[in-house]
């Protein structure tokens, strides 16, 4: 199983690809609503992409209130 650090890095890389950002432009503690300027519908799109990548299901209620990549990666890690 990958480590939390690896999962976090993968989440960041996928988010950078999804939103067409330079590699390395996101960090684990970034608030993705503020940093990416995305709305709730765009967040749902990113979640779908992460689910496909990690081959898991992330229920909406699991990510309710989550706004930084680190916590998001933790929620993903717990389901790997």
């Amino acid at each position, binding site marked *: 199983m990958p480590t939390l650090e690896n999962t976090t890095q993968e989440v960041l890389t996928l988010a950078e690809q999804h939103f067409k950002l330079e590699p390395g432009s996101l960090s684990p503690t970034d608030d993705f609503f503020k940093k990416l300027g*995305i709305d709730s519908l765009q967040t749902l799109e990113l979640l779908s992409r992460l689910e496909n990548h990690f081959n898991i299901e992330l229920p909406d209620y699991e990510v*309710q209130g989550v706004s930084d990549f680190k916590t998001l990666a933790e929620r993903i890690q717990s389901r790997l």
Partner: protein
Amino acid sequence: MLDLTEYSSVGAALKDAVEKFAKETCLIEADREREKDRLSYAEFNARAHSLARAMQDAGFSVADRASIIMTNQSKWLISAYAIFFSGGVLVPLDYKLTPVEQWQLLQHSGAKILITEYPIWRQLATSPARADATTLQTVLVSEAPPSADLSGAHRWEAFRNASAPPQFAPRERKDIASIVYSSGTGGRPKGCMMTHENYLEQCVALTSLYPFWPGVRYLSILPTNHAIDFMVGFFGPFTCGACVVHLRTLRPEFVREAFTKYKITYVSLVPLVLKNLQKGLQARFAELPPGKRKIFDRLVAINKTLTKPHPRLWLSRGLLKQVHAAFGGELRAIIVGGAFTEPQTLQFFYDLGIPVANGYGLTEAGTAITVNDLNPFRADTVGKPLPGMEVKIVDPAPDGVGEVYVRSKTVMSGYLKDPELTAETIVDGWLRTGDLGQFDLQGHLHLSGRKKNMIVTEEGKNIYPEDIESVFESLAVKEFCVFAANYVWPKRTMVGEQLILAIHLENNQAFTEELKHDIAARNSRLLNYKRIHGIVVYPEDFPRTASLKIKRYDLATLLAKLDRDHVILPL
């Protein structure tokens, strides 16, 4: 449907409904492509009864308050019925509030029982604000993992007593049925005390225009704590034997699938989502080969002509088969609410043969005050007053616009623990909405803005931000909002008032000369006294409610922290 004029409480009406429609399906709950639950009214009744009995055993009695903080799901409605059956007062809270805000409102409401979901409880339980909630005695938590530490709470699923029937508690029409917070998490909670009569009367009025019956399927997307979904996603359909469909995920792909899978009849949406839907459809239409596109446009034009006097659903479904098939083929109307919807969006859907029930209301007035009766469809108004609503325009300006006052059996009895605010808001039986509007000759209400967020020009003209926002529709920014500058940065003056456009750019978007020119060009389309005078580029997301409405006051408060003299870019 039941004849609600004969009932004295929400609980009594629901009690008869679950017996009358026992064999009908009342709830479907789906998580992605999986159907998790499907309940008949009889099964719903059994689950609510055993819960009600356990609550009563725990000391919950008549007029006690119980709060629900849950996402839209079947347990929300089962719990609500158990509360009403026991004669309790429901306190529905927004699940998107922070734990501190939720604890604040729980304490303010005096809730004795809290019914919530594990992911929400996980955050509530560890919040330091928990210590302030002194009235709370029992917490029920649904869907907790087997090994979870519930921190003193009970499992919703196990909190049951099926060995004895619960005691039904009759209530009178004037008694409080629920306390709904319309706002006030910033310090002065506005807990609207809604009576049983409020709900019974509102339901009669709404279903006279938009009826439900057994077989109707309502897709519940707006939060159920919100007045609209509570009425059209619970009380309305239940008293008519209809079915409510809940989705545990709101990912667009699964919402789309639900329309076709469950043959949805009605859905309620906020304007933001409706607009998103419009964008998606427009993108698909743009991909049609030129020949097909021409035929499609012609069919839309024919539909538009033939449905001008009133909707003709069968005709529209025949003419524009594929569009209607994408919505399941049985959609009768999209109910839109919570914020002002742009007329062009309403017209777009109506031209496709999908009526949008646009209206106007506020929690204090018991959900809706006016609704478009589709006879004929009007995209430029918020419709006519519902039956039983007296609406008047007070202190109209020379142009006819004044504050909207409402008197009706649906108006709340007052704000909880705030007689002063109640006295300011309900005057001689009339609810002062704080909204401004006027009636046209056909009796349709046109809204012009909020009372406080407005300007008066030196020529004596009143300008309302909402009135001019439509000129900035589809501006290439993430979101925008118009303010009276003096509303944001209060100034004790009646002259030199100006409007500003607050914009929030897309990620990585720069404020370019091109954008500025676009804003200036649009601005010039307005009459000179209606034009904005400056732009404020705000770097963060606009605060929005759970129903995605921009919190204008909160946004103004955030903008007010900026230095007025430096932050306004002149146009």
